[in-house]
């Protein structure tokens, strides 16, 4: 059961990684295209900035979910690292529970937000605003999955995690 959960979490993180590579590449290409269109084509496209910024939201929030699995989010450990190892592992579960709580509230809050803004469109591209807002419930659910994995299979939080 635990290994199954861990395997799901690992596979989800791997697929998320590919999506992050795709959204980040597209984001950078939009920005390059913006400069190119302004100087080479003579007039800037109206949609590049908006698309880039939507892709930025997806890149950031999605990459943040798999960072939960790897324990890569920055934390202060100078008190934790003084604890003996068994206590530290128990505490690691408590921390994972706190992260899980955030993710669940965030997913729910995001779903409410998507619901309350349903039918609106973006300013430049006139595409439905859900393309942006759906990122919140999606990231919330994925984050919750990884946090749950870390609640059941804790990481040792001894080391600082430099970015």
């Amino acid at each position, binding site marked *: 059961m635990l290994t199954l959960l861990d395997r799901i979490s690992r596979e989800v993180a791997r697929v998320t990684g590919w999506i992050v*590579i795709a959204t980040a*590449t597209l984001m950078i290409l939009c920005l390059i295209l913006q400069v190119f269109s302004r100087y080479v084509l003579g007039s800037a496209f109206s949609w590049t900035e908006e698309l880039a910024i939507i892709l930025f939201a997806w*890149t950031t929030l999605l990459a943040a979910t798999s960072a939960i699995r790897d324990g890569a989010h920055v934390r202060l450990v100078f008190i934790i690292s003084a604890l003996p190892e068994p206590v530290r592992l128990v505490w690691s579960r408590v921390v994972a529970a706190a992260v899980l709580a955030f993710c669940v509230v965030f997913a729910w*809050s995001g779903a409410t937000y998507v619901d309350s803004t349903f039918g609106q469109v973006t300013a430049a591209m006139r595409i439905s605003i859900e393309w942006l807002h759906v990122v*919140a419930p999606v990231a919330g659910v994925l984050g919750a999955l990884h946090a749950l994995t870390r609640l059941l299979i804790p990481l040792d939080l001894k080391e600082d995690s430099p970015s």
Partner: protein
Amino acid sequence: MSDASWTILLVFLGGLLTGVPIVFSIGLAAIAGLYVADFPFVVLAQRVIAGTQVFSLLAIPGFVLAGDLMMHGGLSRRLVKVCQALVQHVTGGLGMVTVLSATFFAAISGSAPATTAAIGGIMVPEMEQRGWRRDFSAALATASGPIGQMIPPSIPMIIWGVVAEESISQLFLAGIIPGFLVAVGLMTVCYFTARRQNIMTDVKRATWPELRSALNQGKWSLAAPVIILGGIYGGVFTPTEAAAIGVAYAFIVGFFIHRELKLSDLGAIMLQSMRTSTIVCFIIAVASAFGWLVAIEQLPDTIASGILSVSSNPIVILLLLNLFLLFIGAVMDNIAAMIILGGILTSIGNQIGLDPTHLGALVVINLAMGMATPPFGYSLFVGAAISKLSIEEVAKALWPMLLIMMVVLALVAYVPWVTLALPSLVR
């Protein structure tokens, strides 16, 4: 203070001290605050999404990726070779190469740990081979890291620009003179250390053909800052677009000219860069929910007045501000600190009449030094990791360099010209 303010502070500090990741300490504090102040929870997702919809922030993944590509594409190694040909014959020359290369690299990269990693990874083994003590080399690479955040482009300057709503191009300019002062100071340390320990005092000056060859190899690396900074200040593109152009440039040079980038490595490099950037940007996004709430609760102004009630003398306040920021920079992640304290710091700055650009530079440089100071500094972690020494060993060799930085910091705080001379030229 209101109940909501107390709840926010207690949950945030409680999480922070017990090892909850900073971003989730901020997020849980926001949730608790929303609950106590009886706001609907939908505000959380709304503010976090709004926090990502800031065009200037896109410069962060851009500059991180550009720096990583330049490291993997052989641009930083060629930069080191040029610096070596320029100063190898001076007493303390190889140490100076480390500082000089970091200063050049700083004009491409906007991050202190990335600068320490890119230059230290090459220079620490090289210096040890030529008779320098390893702890000194590691400390030098650590101390050169903060130059990466002072010389533009600079990720903390971008963040401060977003938090305090200041012009990012102006902030970039404010960091240049302090960055050069730190570089000159660190090179002086190299000179005296080499003279005292009699290290490499007989290296010959590079011959003209040697220098020409190094310059020829390194010309693409040297052109990178010209394109990025020239583009921003020539009004060709915004800092965000400059970051993307930097990515394109690093890719083209690394892939087609140096031929050191492999297509098969690109995915891993991209993923690593986005991990680095997301750790920062996700904090900014979540902190915008936190920031919205503390602004409504007027927490920054309350804390600022509390601090200002201690003294009304601007010189004393400035000193307290510096000591406080140094302490914060030493014990916690400096980007999170900037985002959380942004409101309080701008409020204090306004009340004692500091120029906003001066304040921004002061905050960023203080916290940049925190990158190199124990116990919590990313550059220090990287310096220790690449030299395989403990953090304590590197920290012991750091003190003359920290002293230099303190002097520069005092100049930044009390001589406004140091930060404001360049921004006032283009204002």
